[in-house]
């Protein structure tokens, strides 16, 4: 074997590399924890863990400042595999260690899969109102819905990413083009003071020529990363036909926004910027939400939602109770009691998580736990054996 290859191999199987990677891993985890005060728990995952390099914007230029989770985790995986393949020699004494490391490899792969495949949504249910979709926590979309036919809706959605790019969007199902004149990733909305009111004269002008935007003032805000807040994007969109413009509308993801209707060529369209929806082939209906506090305090004692689950084909029609530490698992999704609206006991908020890789951590952890316990016992037995031999030797002497 030539020297270069040997050096290469020695590098990848070395324990030194392991220790260095573990140290880098610690710094990564610690840095990510601190950065949560700026970016929130979601922001740091893409920046620190689901990346090859941690990019920090310095004067607007992203600069790689540290190896990211994929880099460190990937090298650790290589190191583990290489070391075990190269040094593998079965001995009962080492069985625990081998099991532990096989488990670790699975855990790393599992976390990679989770990062790629996991998704979570929120589902706000109002008592008695059936719902068959959940909404994204972070994503938004511009939906243009042709509601002309009472039997069905024809929906075209433009994802937030496209809106942010600006420009003009054309879609074969739409008889007009959508020109994005302004887009703000977070905004605040308030009513415009009437022009007759004393405040009215000083209100800023609006680009909107149609709809709610005429009577509202939209103020762009900095993006928020707080865990209990979400960004409410807003945009001014102009609908352009071959003949000319239909007008400019203000759309925002603010839930107070009333429906905006556009009539064109005998078709009725509803235009809304909304939280990205994820439709399900089944319907959930809130039957009853209960929320107790401990007597004389406002410490929550329990929350529970009584839900009716139905599928259109009638195969499922049952009642389920979702409460703390007891989620509903259905069709690969986990629905758990996430929140409620204070003072409104007719509403419940569920969180919906899809995590197809959920089984891997269980397997991995069982292997590691068995491995560690075995190894610990082997060591302990060795320790007592040694003491016994010493004692015996002392007695003999």
């Amino acid at each position, binding site marked *: 074997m030539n020297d270069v290859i040997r050096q290469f191999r020695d590098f990848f199987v*070395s*324990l*030194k590399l*392991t*220790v260095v990677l*573990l*140290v880098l*891993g*610690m710094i990564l*985890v*610690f840095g*990510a*924890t*601190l950065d*949560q*005060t700026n970016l929130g*728990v979601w922001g*740091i*995952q893409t920046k620190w*863990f689901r990346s090859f390099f941690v990019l920090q914007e310095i004067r607007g230029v992203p600069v790689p400042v540290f190896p990211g989770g994929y880099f460190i985790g990937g090298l650790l995986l290589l190191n583990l595999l290489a070391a075990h393949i190269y040094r593998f020699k079965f001995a009962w004494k080492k069985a625990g260690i081998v099991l532990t490391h096989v488990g670790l490899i699975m855990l790393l792969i*599992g*976390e990679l899969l*989770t990062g790629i495949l*996991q998704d*979570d949504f929120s589902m706000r249910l109002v008592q008695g109102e059936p719902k068959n979709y959940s909404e994204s926590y972070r994503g938004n979309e511009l939906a243009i819905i042709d509601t002309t036919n009472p039997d069905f809706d024809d929906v075209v959605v433009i994802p937030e990413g496209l809106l942010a790019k600006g420009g003009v969007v054309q879609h074969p199902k739409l008889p007009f083009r959508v020109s994005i004149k302004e887009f703000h990733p977070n905004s605040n909305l308030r009513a415009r003071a009437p022009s007759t009111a004393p405040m009215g004269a000083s209100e800023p002008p609006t680009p909107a020529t149609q709809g709610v935007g005429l009577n509202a003032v939209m103020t762009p805000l900095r993006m928020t990363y707080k865990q209990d807040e979400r960004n409410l994007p807003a945009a001014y969109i102009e609908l352009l036909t071959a003949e000319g413009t239909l007008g400019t509308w203000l759309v925002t993801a603010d839930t107070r926004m009333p429906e905006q209707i556009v009539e064109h060529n005998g078709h009725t369209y509803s235009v809304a910027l909304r939280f990205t929806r994820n439709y399900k082939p089944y319907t959930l209906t809130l039957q009853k939400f209960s929320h107790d*506090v*401990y*007597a*004389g*305090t406002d*410490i*929550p*004692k*329990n*929350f529970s939602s009584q839900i009716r689950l139905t599928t259109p084909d009638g195969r499922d029609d049952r009642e389920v109770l979702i409460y*703390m*530490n*007891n*989620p509903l*698992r259905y069709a690969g*999704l*986990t*629905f*758990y009691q996430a929140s409620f609206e204070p003072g409104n006991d007719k509403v419940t908020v569920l*969180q919906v*998580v899809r*995590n197809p890789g*959920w089984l891997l*951590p*269980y397997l991995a*952890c069982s292997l*590691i*736990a068995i491995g*560690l*316990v075995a*190894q*610990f016992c082997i*060591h302990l037995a060795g*320790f007592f054996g040694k*003491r016994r031999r010493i004692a015996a030797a002392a007695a003999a002497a």
Partner: protein
Amino acid sequence: MKKFLPLLVLIVAVLYVGKSLVPPKNQGPYDLVGFGQLPLLANGRIKPIDTEARSSLLRLQGRQRVSSPLLSGDLVGSPTEWMLDVIFRPEKADTYPTFAIDNPDVLALLGKKDEDLKINYTSPAKQVLALVGFIPSRHRRFTLAEIWPHRAAIQDQARLAEPVESAVRTPFQSAIMQLYFNLIHYQRIQHAFVMPGRENFLNELLSFQDNIAAGVEAVKAKQANQPHNETMAGMMMEMGEMFSAMGQVSNFGVIPPDAGEKDPTAWKTSGAALLESFQTSQVNPAALAYAGLARAWRQEQPEQFNKLVQLYRSGLEKRFGPQLEKARYEARFNAAEPFYLSMEFYGLAFLVAIFSWLKWPDVLGRSAFWLVAVAWVLSTGGIFARMWLEGRPPVTNLYSSALFVGWGAVALCLVLEYFYRNAVGSVAAGVVGFATLLVAHHLSLSGDTLEMMRAVLDSNFWLATHVVVVTTGYSATFLSGFLALIYIVRGLFTRSLDKATADSLTRMVYGIVCFATLFSFVGTVLGGIWADQSWGRFWGWDPKENGALLIVIWNAIILHARWGGMIKQRGLMILAVGGNIVTSWSWFGTNMLGVGLHSYGFTDAAFVALASFVVSQLAIIGLASLPLEKWRSFRSTAPAKVAEPA
């Protein structure tokens, strides 16, 4: 004779513990113990008045004793007696210095100047003691009477500070909010039983009782603009306003649920119960009993007081037997103060164990071992008592985690000491036991430590598995760090670290690190499984999860570095001390996230404590990195060529 010393120590320690378990006796003519055992509902659970009195005092002024630096002796004999003065004789309680204020800006708001704060001791001995810092030289506790004139200013400032998120408040804002909430808390206690400031509330209630029916008629007539008895209507209105004020100010449920009420937690405030008199035409007997107690206390009639306590208690007995019994045990648990007592034993054991390295290693070593054992058994009892009172696994909040971390570490120390018998285990037990109980004491200052579990944590299964295992991991990581400290301090500053001791310390640290890896890993994984079970995700990278992960990685680093020959004895010790930093971060730092990162949060007391601990550990690491020939123990053994011990 000398060889009986350990036995003697054991006997004395056990007797001392036994004494603390004897039911507390009344010091004066009043049945204060009986009163302290009466139940009330606060923070969502039924507890004895004694507990509320103690946790209120801790919260208001950081200690259970009520005294003034200028007086010798205490102002009241027990927390319950203080509570009685607050509720029944407020004009006296208002002159007790029970509000701790340290922030200079808040003191300035109260018009306190530097010269007002200085304590002018009359005895020269005390003046000297104050000068050298053995006794306080400045006032830090103030009476309500001193604060009351400034209440409007306090309220204004509190209103300004309130909208600011607690994590980003300035020290002044935090201090003013704390004072404001403490004043509210004090008023809640004052209004909990009777209307404060009434000379004879019982008589008022009795005459009210005689006139309810007529009075209600008079009020109705008045509202309908019909002829009515004006004085009667006026009295009714006045009583009504008084009761509703009591009910609004206080939120302590001191009045038991009505007969026939199914919900055993439906205790009422005294004000709410008295307001009901208008419907029932009957003054609630429990409210009357407390008014009677108030009169007996004000007029200093101990026989009557004791009789009323007895009567009220036997009235409750039929319907609330189990709750009364539990409250009684809790009051006895409070009086026994097992954790403070263990703390003393740990401190003593530490000193004895250290001394055993200088003289009489065998006798003193065993004495220290027994002291540690007694302290450990005592805190075991305390933890079990808390578990029984709460109906929960041992760790439910930060306070109980401090108890448990100490308990687990000391248990490991006892095992180590049993095998090695070189007093190292006892020294470590003394330090860790004492330090964790000290931390626990500081955590208890925020109020009652037996808290109700928030809905999201309400799972005894996972509290018993994940939380206990991961906390055991903390214990073990800390223990390895403290054992390493012993190695470094003895090796660096003394000549006592011979090869045998050094080797056995190395084996101890290595073994404990293995143990810590096992427990912190399994604990972290169990946490992941809990998260997956209830939230559908195994890992979310939130600060607490990351903290646990850091401990696992750190222990893994130590083990791999050792296996790879990258570190030897000293390196192992240095890394183990690093484990102290990592664990303290995971334990407390993650909870402060958002505090420490904002520039003005740095004066937060807990943050300062954590930062100083980290700095001290870094200093030890720095010292340990000195060349081995500077270590006194190694310099003496191999002056020419220093070979690092393997």
